[in-house]
């Protein structure tokens, strides 16, 4: 990948100031890039900071939370330096986002058509008629039958899967260069999940977008992602191309995640979920944030938080086990 990155997140920190003593370090010094057209998966347990990373890129962090440091470059333009008004021209237009909960993500009091056309009218400066025609096209593109009627309907008249299709139609309406999808299928039926993911993959190809896919389903990762970033405790702990990461998993946390997917063909007794729970973001253990749960914990781990280091080509790991390119047998 010698291309220029589309999105460049550099030492991003987003903290939540909960009260006088407690600061939740939801995103704590994260750096990564997304290149044009690629699908990057962001995985990690609940509370690891995936959504906050995405919302930080969109600059949609609310009250006690604040982006306190770092840079976010989109095609070389520093988003954190934009004014509120300039940022509204980036959202939905250059970067679009789809959320987890399709049932509540659409405004209940406006028609589907209204909610799609308002974007086209704002970003593409279309008139009412053009926007309407385009909205119908978009609904057809995302596989919604009777699109001419659906634009006059309200969200409550559609099923969850249909609503998520509407969200996708809205997201691609202004042909963004980057689409962020935050667990877009978690709330849907298993049968619908694959359809929605396939649709997003199609749209990514058709509109030549990059896709940042947030999920905790490693099955989804292996099928759709070119590259994977594993997050734990507000930091990236492992990052590599998908095949490489799955074949030569390095970080004990990633191994744990992979171990916690039950495999039908294997003996289910071997299912080794990660012991314990994610520590709260305001109370990480000293040293490595995973040290409190890591089966390979060493003394050093409880004292010094390791750096994210390149240990093989394209493979970054944050773990003392691999320091100095060292190899360990487990």
């Amino acid at each position, binding site marked *: 990948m010698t291309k220029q990155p589309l999105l460049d997140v550099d030492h991003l920190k987003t903290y939540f100031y909960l009260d006088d003593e407690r600061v939740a370090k939801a995103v704590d010094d994260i750096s990564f890039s997304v290149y044009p057209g690629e699908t990057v998966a962001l995985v990690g347990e609940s509370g690891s900071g995936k959504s906050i990373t995405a919302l930080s890129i*969109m600059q*949609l962090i*609310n009250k006690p939370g604040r982006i306190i440091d770092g840079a976010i470059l989109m095609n070389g333009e520093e988003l954190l330096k934009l004014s*509120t*008004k300039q940022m*509204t*021209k*980036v*959202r*939905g*237009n250059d970067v*679009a*986002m789809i*959320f987890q*909960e399709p049932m*509540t*993500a*659409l*405004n*209940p*009091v*406006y*028609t589907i058509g209204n909610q799609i056309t*308002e*974007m086209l009218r*704002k*970003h593409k400066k279309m008139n009412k008629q053009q926007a309407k025609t385009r909205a119908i096209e978009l609904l057809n593109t995302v596989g919604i039958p009777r699109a001419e009627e659906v634009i006059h309907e*309200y969200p*409550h008249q559609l099923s969850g899967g249909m609503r998520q299709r509407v*969200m996708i139609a*809205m997201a691609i309406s202004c042909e963004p260069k980057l689409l962020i999808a935050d667990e877009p299928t978690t709330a849907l039926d298993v049968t619908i999940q694959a359809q929605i993911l396939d649709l997003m993959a199609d749209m990514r190809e058709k509109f030549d977008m990059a896709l940042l896919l947030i999920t905790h389903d490693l099955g989804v990762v292996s099928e759709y992602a070119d590259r994977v970033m594993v997050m734990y405790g507000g930091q990236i702990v492992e990052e590599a191309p998908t095949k490489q990461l799955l074949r030569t998993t390095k970080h004990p946390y990633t191994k744990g995640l992979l171990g916690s997917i039950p495999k039908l063909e294997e003996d289910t007794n071997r299912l080794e979920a990660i012991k314990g729970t994610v520590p709260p973001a305001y109370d990480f253990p000293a040293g490595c944030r995973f040290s409190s749960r890591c089966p390979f914990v060493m003394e050093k781990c409880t004292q010094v938080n390791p750096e994210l280091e390149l240990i093989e080509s394209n493979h970054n790991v944050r773990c003392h086990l691999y320091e100095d390119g060292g190899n360990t047998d487990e």
Partner: protein
Amino acid sequence: MYKYIIRRILVFIPMLFALTVIVFGLAQAAPGDALTGQQLADPRVDPEVYEKQREALGLNDPIPVQYAKWISNVAQGDFGKSLVFNGRSVADLIEARFANTLYLGIFSLFITIVVAIPIGIYSARKPYSLLDYAATGFGFLGLAIPNFFFGLIAIYVLSINLGWFPAQGTLSGPGMAGFEAFFSRLHHMVLPGITLGLAGTATYMRYMRSEVLDVLGSDYIRTAKAKGMSDSNVLYKHTLRNALIPIITLMGFEIGVLLSGAVITEQVFQYPGLGTLFISSVTNRDFPVVMAITLILGILILIGNLLADIFYSIVDPRIRYD
């Protein structure tokens, strides 16, 4: 929708019927009648005279008979004659008062909406700001101070001491017309209007604040922002309409609250509306007037609730009546 409205109106009829039965029964259960007061005031008159009048007015008939007479007349649009005001027809007596109360109610509701909704929105957008705290303080005061007490203070300060507003009545002088009369009316309504709307303003302000805060935190607002909608679009298009849904439901009941508040407020300001008439009619046992006012208030409250339901279904597409 039309079917629903018609069905609702049909349901009104038995409700109003029950209302009149109850009020009629209660009124009759109270000791004395319209002539008792006159009798006490002038004991030299032969009691026989009053007894004859009672017989003539039908006041000695059994209560069910009196009720039957009354309701059949009402069904024909005849509310009867006042027993006190020299036999003037009830309809005549109420007409002018009704308009006054209606103006006062509308004026007060207008003040409530114009003050409460923008302040509520501001408080929600800038929670814990100075103005939000001020509004909260005002809200508590507004709810805690009884109407009559606030009215008296308003009269004392704004009318007697500062002389800005008249303390009573509806017009400054007889023979006013056109714009002059309109403004004089408005001028007279300021103090009673504010007094009457005080509690409502405080309530709606708090409601609006919490509704807007609630909606601002919802998923679809995050979607609207993620779509690149401007702050004002997010607030005025996506937030406001959703935040108003519960407020509108509340407004339906507000008509009843305003009317019952009007009884006290009108008394304090000696404002010639239905409220003052109602109180004097009750004290004078002028039952035809009492019954007519009760019926009108009942109808107004039911209409208020129906209007709220209709508005509700207009604002919220999830609500469909059929």
